């Protein structure tokens, strides 16, 4: 698996506006849209990609993010995980996913037992209203997840140029 935080992790493209218009113009709109509708990556797919196919369990992760933000350019997020943070059992990493961003993998935070407490915070960009997920990898191979819906009134992806 290629490392998820890379330019290659961009979502697979849907049909461009130009393709849809061209298809409609030639009277083939239905035929052109049918194969595309069958494949749209969802949050589940992005999560499976970082956990190597394992379905994470809910619980033990507290994801704090505002339910409504006016501006998607900088959204505070705080993640706290129940973990003893000892050599025997600690949080390896926390992966933040925004399902509808152009690059859904936003950041991966790597911790070590020396953290003492599994608690981190950062600032994110959100392209639109969507569900944000924090996937947590524990040292014993377990995966946990917490999700939160966020409403964004002004997105982060407006091109000023």
């Amino acid at each position: 698996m290629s490392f998820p935080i890379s330019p290659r992790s961009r979502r697979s493209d849907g049909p461009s506006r130009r393709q849809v218009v061209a298809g409609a113009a030639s009277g083939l709109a239905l035929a052109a849209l049918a194969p595309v509708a069958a494949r749209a990556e969802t949050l589940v797919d992005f999560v499976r990609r970082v956990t190597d196919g394992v379905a994470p369990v809910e619980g033990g992760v507290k994801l704090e993010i505002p339910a409504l933000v006016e501006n998607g350019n900088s959204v505070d997020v705080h993640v706290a995980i129940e973990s003893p943070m000892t050599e025997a059992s600690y949080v390896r990493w926390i992966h933040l996913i925004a399902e509808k961003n152009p690059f859904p993998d936003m950041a991966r935070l790597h911790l070590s037992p020396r953290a003492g407490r599994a608690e981190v915070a950062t600032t994110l960009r959100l392209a639109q209203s969507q569900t944000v997920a924090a996937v947590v990898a524990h040292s014993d191979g377990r995966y946990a997840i917490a999700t939160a819906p966020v409403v964004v009134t002004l997105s982060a992806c407006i091109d000023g140029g």
Partner: protein
Amino acid sequence: MFNARITLPPQAKPGEIVEIKVLVRHPMDRGGQSDGRGGTVPRKILNRMTATYAGAEIFRIDMNTGVAANPFVSFMTRAIETGDILFEWREDGGATYTRTARLTVA
């Protein structure tokens, strides 16, 4: 354009868990915007920050374009000994920046 502000407690007891806050000034250009001359701006973000303290890496964040401009990061660490915490950032294109912050343990 790079500037980092690192906040940690002035003093900590041995074994105490301290919070380290890092605020960086960086545009985190996600690329693809128009440059006004018919082309597009290349991506230029800080893609990694590592923190090293008392001989080991205590924290690392891999960042993609989903991290805000002027990113803020906070994390915890257990105070072990008096010493410098070394922060290192890696930028697209290969540039690196380093800063240190001293943690006093008494």
